[in-house]
């Protein structure tokens, strides 16, 4: 594994994170958070933490996103910031 790949994934993680908190739509934020989690999962897989990556893929990218979507669906998509 090369550190360049590592760096690219890390950058993607950070971008997704910033996007998730700045997008003015909560549904979008939830989805972006899923993407963030997925990138994170990649990063950990790259680092050799396969179990953690697996868990993050199923929990962070999977269930968490569903929970976010469910919660947003039951409340509102509107956000001011």
């Amino acid at each position: 594994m090369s550190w360049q790949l590592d760096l690219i994934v890390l950058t993607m993680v950070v971008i997704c994170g910033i996007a998730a908190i700045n997008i003015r739509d909560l549904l979008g934020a939830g989805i972006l958070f899923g993407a963030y989690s997925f990138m994170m999962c990649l990063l950990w897989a790259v680092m050799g933490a396969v179990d953690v990556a697996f868990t993050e893929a199923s929990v962070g990218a999977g269930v968490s996103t569903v929970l976010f979507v469910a919660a947003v669906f039951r409340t509102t998509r509107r956000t001011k910031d």
Partner: protein
Amino acid sequence: MRILGLVIVILCGSILIYHTSDFPDWGHPASPASTHVSPYYIEKALDDTAVPNIVTAVLADYRGYDTMFETTVIFCAGIACFFLLRITRRMEPSVTLYRHLPTGITLRIEKGGKEPDDSNIFKRIDTQWVPYDLIINTTCRMVIPFIQLFALYVISHGHHSPGGGFQGGVILGASVILFAISTDLRTAISRMSERLGAFLSATGVFIYAGAGALCLVLGANFLDYSALAPVLNVNSVMARSHGILIVEIGVGLAVMAVMIWIYYNLSSAGRHDEGL
């Protein structure tokens, strides 16, 4: 506030980044973290527990106590969501929608109107009306068994490959959630009721804690699976391996049930009539 927050965050961040110079180099094999405790796990795990996946061995045996409470945390979250959100008294919705199955026509019935009684022809659908989609329904119906099969594989094969009770449980839960999304919440609840979820979650954690307590009853310390050897009729190392499998199954059950339970409550805001 925005600027202030930014300034504080940047300040803290730069101090922290500055202090990373004291850290051991990234990935250095001789860093204290890699030399003090962890070598023991790597070198002894297979001999002690007959589990090649060191993470599983450490998770469920060396630090099994942690994992028991990790499962309990999930259980707590399940109860907490139920406790906070569930509305037990039934509130009649002001409007209900029914689909006439042979034609696909949607009926809108105001509160107090007569409900159609033939459930074979009429099917209640969510008020936030979703068009009937054959492709999604069929695909999900076909995929879900395989997801569940995979989940079982993940749970049972956690000794040898990445995965284990927790991941498998989440996947198992996800399959039911997928079912709930692809049909609707009422169908999912009719397949797997809330009460069953609650029982399964408690049972799952109970299997874990009970296995530990069984060890205690058999005279060893809490969670010392080697005490299960006479019961399982194997030697003490294999007893640990089997013990890990038992608790992984418990974890899987609990996590699955709780994930579904939380989803039921969140997606319907505790009403359990109309979901995502």
